[in-house]
């Protein structure tokens, strides 16, 4: 017994399923079309069925080195993720007390969200150009540019992910029970210990969520990167660059592979977690599993 579900559960579960199907809608077209025959295009009809496009992804042939840009995007995404989490949590903590400039920072974050990415991108590019000129003028003749994946590119991505991180922190800290922190301080915890041992563990799942969000935003970011990335492209930029010429279903194969690997990783993780939980079942409890 224990798990009697109310009717609304089934309705909502159906709704959620529908949402997921909707979310995956275009992905289904991608999954199917990635098996196009060698002469197939990006649209229906299917022109035979084959695995050639997967082969293309692995062989790395093509104008741009998708593998390399994939790696770059991954690296950038991970750094962005880390910084987004750290800076957002830190600023989120700051906002729980009031400090001078809180409103300013808040509106700057909002503005950064609003500003069309291409404009921000352009502004950053201009800024770095001025910087380069300045450096060259001050004598470094062999200097090429300060622009790059982890300078201007990183900055541009952060202006995109940080507002999200900060605002989600607001949701996380909303009605966070301050008495827990009081209790910790009372028990002799330093502010850092209070954060490390009380606040962080409680908000951790949400913070991981911010990281994931930050990574996804960076991974998919296009417009802000376009003028700030320097001489090497991120994956989306390369993919977009490819659309200016004959595009083949290998990009679909890339999408299918990404999904497949993600599914696999998540599935394995889930199995591991469930097994671990089953082992701990002895302390388990169905606490709070009320009728509501």
């Amino acid at each position, binding site marked *: 017994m224990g798990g009697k579900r109310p009717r609304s559960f089934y309705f909502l579960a159906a709704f959620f399923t529908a949402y997921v199907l909707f979310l995956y809608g275009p992905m289904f077209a991608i999954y199917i079309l990635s098996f196009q025959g060698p002469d197939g295009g990006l649209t229906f009809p299917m022109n035979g069925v084959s695995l050639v496009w997967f082969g293309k992804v692995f062989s790395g042939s093509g104008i741009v080195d998708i593998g390399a840009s994939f790696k770059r995007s991954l690296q950038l995404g991970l750094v962005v993720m880390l910084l987004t989490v750290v800076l957002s949590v830190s600023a989120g903590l700051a906002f729980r007390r009031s400090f001078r400039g809180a409103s300013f920072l808040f509106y700057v974050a909002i503005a950064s969200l609003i500003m069309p990415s291409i404009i921000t991108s352009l502004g950053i590019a201009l800024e770095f150009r001025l910087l380069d000129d300045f450096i060259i003028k001050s004598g470094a003749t062999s200097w090429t540019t300060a622009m790059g994946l982890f300078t201007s590119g990183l900055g541009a991505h952060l202006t995109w992910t940080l507002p999200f991180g900060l605002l989600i922190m607001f949701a996380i800290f909303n009605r966070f029970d301050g008495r827990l922190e009081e209790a910790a301080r009372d028990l002799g915890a330093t502010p850092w210990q209070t954060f490390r041992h009380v606040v962080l563990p409680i908000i951790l799942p949400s913070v991981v969520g911010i990281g994931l969000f930050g990574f996804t935003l960076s991974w*998919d970011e296009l417009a802000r990167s376009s003028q700030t990335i320097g001489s090497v492209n991120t994956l989306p930029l390369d993919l977009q660059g490819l659309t200016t010429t004959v595009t083949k279903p290998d990009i679909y194969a890339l999408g299918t592979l990404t999904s497949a690997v993600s599914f696999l990783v998540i599935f394995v993780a889930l199995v591991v977690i469930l097994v671990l939980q089953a082992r701990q079942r002895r302390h388990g409890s169905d606490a709070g599993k009320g009728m509501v």
Partner: protein
Amino acid sequence: MASPSSPSLRLAPSMKQHRKTFVAWLQAAPMMLVFALFFLLPLLFVTVVSAWDYNEYEMIPAFSLRGYSDTFEGCIAELPSLCTILKTYLNTLKLCLLTWALTLLIGFTVAYFLAFHVRSKTWQIVLTLLCTIPFWTSNVIRMIAWIPLLGRNGLVNRGLEGVGLIRQPLEWLLFSEFSVVLALVHLFTFFMVVPIFNSMIRIDKRLIEASYDAGATGWQTLLNVIIPLAKPGIVIGSIFVITIVMGDFVTIGVMGGQQIASAGKIIEARLNALQFPAAAANAVILLGVTILIISALTRVVDIRKEL
């Protein structure tokens, strides 16, 4: 014993306040720094450039409000019919409102399901990841995939024809306001789900029990307890969706078959024509308009109040 209440021993309350504020300030500083370097400074350049003059080929570093005045060209002369910029903003607002309403509805429901019906944290995480995976395939690719899905000969039309629901393929499925809103909803619903979900899991389950106990129906509980308590999440999600849609041009461009105007699209067209001052002026206008909307929103619900 030291003289107990000698005022010299006391720290001025303002000083104590200062110390606390200083720590908070330090915590916020890294983020402030990133914004200062990569947003405010560029924004400054953009604003300066927006007040520059320009000709067909290049920008001229001399003060001129041409970028602005050109933008509003005909707004007075053409009355009562609307000038381009107003028409465009109206259209953008319409798309924005539609998208907002839909993402809110769907996002709230999904978040509600995840927060209140999915009982274990593990499953919450798994389902959240399930919703994230599509985003790991680049949007460039996903956008292309709408054509085989919604196009004249796409999966949907084929399916409907196959079932016998329609004879002629539905043209409005693609390159229409419908498809724009569809794609926007598709992309941004998750931006609603995340903050709403986060504020929902903070709601003490006993409050919901108490509400049912007071004879409230499910709907009443939703309206009177869950929504008020999830309000900050709702507002944050709304900020995400509204700000992004207001500035969007990629999705509107691709899904609207490049035929639908939006505030972002004007800026893009100007930029691609390398008319930076005009583009910058338009961006400043967009920034102003959207900040107004957002500050109105945060006036209704102060999301920073209950931190």
